[in-house]
């Protein structure tokens, strides 16, 4: 059987030079960890700064008079609430209220939005969005190959990035962005991330990726014990899990509704018609039967993706994300369980390869950073009411 050709980000060679271990991630050849290891990368992001290559993410450009109306019809959050320079966490929904993908919607102008979608779902999303265009006056363009995206995350992110740009970074509020030069490279600088830390995501032309990568590492004094560290996908996963942010393909997909995933806060049922609105309104009225919850393992053992959740010996649900949490030094996870077992404090067990290991449902996020300054509004996390 022929090995399918893996896609590469513009930083592929840089990762290999740094000794990263590369893996197939949804068809992309991506660094899972660098020689320092996942735990060190994770901790460095929590305490100083981590740099992530997320150029595999997809970017879909939406331009035209009906840009907002169109995006509002295919996504669940209310794009009409955005102002220029603001971003929003949202989802592409099916008629059943389940999730085609979760995404960020950036507003550049009333007639210009940018949708940032997950890497492995980009082709599916592009088809979905294109095929759902009706008579709206919009022009759609898949720009994924043109952009690189670097995420600089952690308490030192602002200080490091500020040395490379004249943009007043401290004035950019959480979930807002500005356009400007970073090390002379025209960029979109967005105060967003997927780690639970303060930080920025920088979008620029793909051919400038190595320059930005090298200069940010240099500015962050990579190599020093308190310097920035390049981080792989494994650390990105444990960081987002500690912050209880949903991962598409694990915690949310086309079989889970937004309400079940505690993403009711991005379902603006009152904004007007959108795909999935009726199903979600009905489910909201009837109440969900299962819910995504966070749990901590209370006995020896590590819960992993796809393991069964037991209550009194009966299989009631499944772990969607399970991992050691390097900063919290606990073994944690997210799982769907029936609502009657979804309350914090509920004792559950996880079937860890045939062994029933005790766990307890806890409020999420597991980790919440201490905010030094007002960084704005909502954080996209799976919240337990």
């Amino acid at each position, binding site marked *: 059987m022929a090995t399918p050709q893996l896609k590469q980000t513009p930083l592929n060679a840089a990762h290999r030079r740094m000794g990263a*271990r590369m893996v197939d991630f949804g068809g992309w050849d991506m660094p*899972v*960890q660098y020689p320092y*290891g*996942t*735990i*060190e990368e*994770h901790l460095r992001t929590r305490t100083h700064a981590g740099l992530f290559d997320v150029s595999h993410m997809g970017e879909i450009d939406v331009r035209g008079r009906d840009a907002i109306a169109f995006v509002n019809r295919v996504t669940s959050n209310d794009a009409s609430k955005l102002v220029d320079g603001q971003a929003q966490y949202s989802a592409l929904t099916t008629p059943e209220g389940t999730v085609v993908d979760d995404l960020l919607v950036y507003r550049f102008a009333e007639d210009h939005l940018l949708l940032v979608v997950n890497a492995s779902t980009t082709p599916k999303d592009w088809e979905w969005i294109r095929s759902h265009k009706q008579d709206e006056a919009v022009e759609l363009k898949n720009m994924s190959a043109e952009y690189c995206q670097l995420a600089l995350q952690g308490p030192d992110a602002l200080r490091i990035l500020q040395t490379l740009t004249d943009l007043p970074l401290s004035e950019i509020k959480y979930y807002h962005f500005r356009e400007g030069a970073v090390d002379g490279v025209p960029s979109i600088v967005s105060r967003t991330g997927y780690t639970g830390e303060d930080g920025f995501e920088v979008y620029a032309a793909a051919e400038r990726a190595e320059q930005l990568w090298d200069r940010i590492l240099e500015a962050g004094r990579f190599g020093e014990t308190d310097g920035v560290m390049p981080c792989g996908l*494994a650390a990105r996963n*444990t960081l987002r899990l500690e912050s209880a942010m949903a991962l598409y393909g694990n915690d949310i997909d086309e079989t889970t509704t937004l309400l079940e995933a505690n993403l009711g806060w991005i379902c603006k049922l009152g904004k007007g018609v959108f795909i999935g609105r009726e199903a979600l309104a009905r489910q909201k009225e009837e109440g969900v039967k299962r819910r995504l919850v966070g749990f901590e393992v209370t006995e*020896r*053992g*590590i819960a*992993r993706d796809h393991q069964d959740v037991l209550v009194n010996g009966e299989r009631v649900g499944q772990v969607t994300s399970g*991992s*050691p949490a*390097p900063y919290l030094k606990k073994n944690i996870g997210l799982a769907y369980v029936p609502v009657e077992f979804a309350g914090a404090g509920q004792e559950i067990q996880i079937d860890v*390869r045939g062994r029933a290991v005790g766990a307890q449902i806890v409020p999420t996020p597991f980790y919440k950073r201490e905010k030094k300054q007002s960084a704005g509004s909502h954080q996209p996390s799976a919240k337990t009411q």
Partner: protein
Amino acid sequence: MANVPEDLHYSKDHEWLRVEGDVAVIGITDYAQNSLGDVVYVELPKPGEKFEAHESFGSVESVKAVSEIFTPVSGEVVEVNESLSDEPEKVNEDPYGAGWMIRMRMNNPGEVDSLLSSVEYEEFTSAETE
């Protein structure tokens, strides 16, 4: 390059074995710990448990993955490295020393002859890396 001490025997499942009379000390190789990444959890059997050769006797987990560990030879567990439950990182730091996993009384010390030498194991892992 992974460290492969000359005086040990190796399995294709990446365990090492040191012969001490009729007892075998068993752990995972430097190559294996390096492939796994940070070890955060080690599950081992209890003394007295008996295993055939190439049977799973426990597991070792990194942040990202779970790997089963296999007996290179048959025998009865006489001692396990209890300290790994609190300090699993020893498997990364000193895989051939403080990171040892079990001591087994071998049923048939002749089984050791079927294992790889350090030279053969080095060839085996370099082929696997390619």
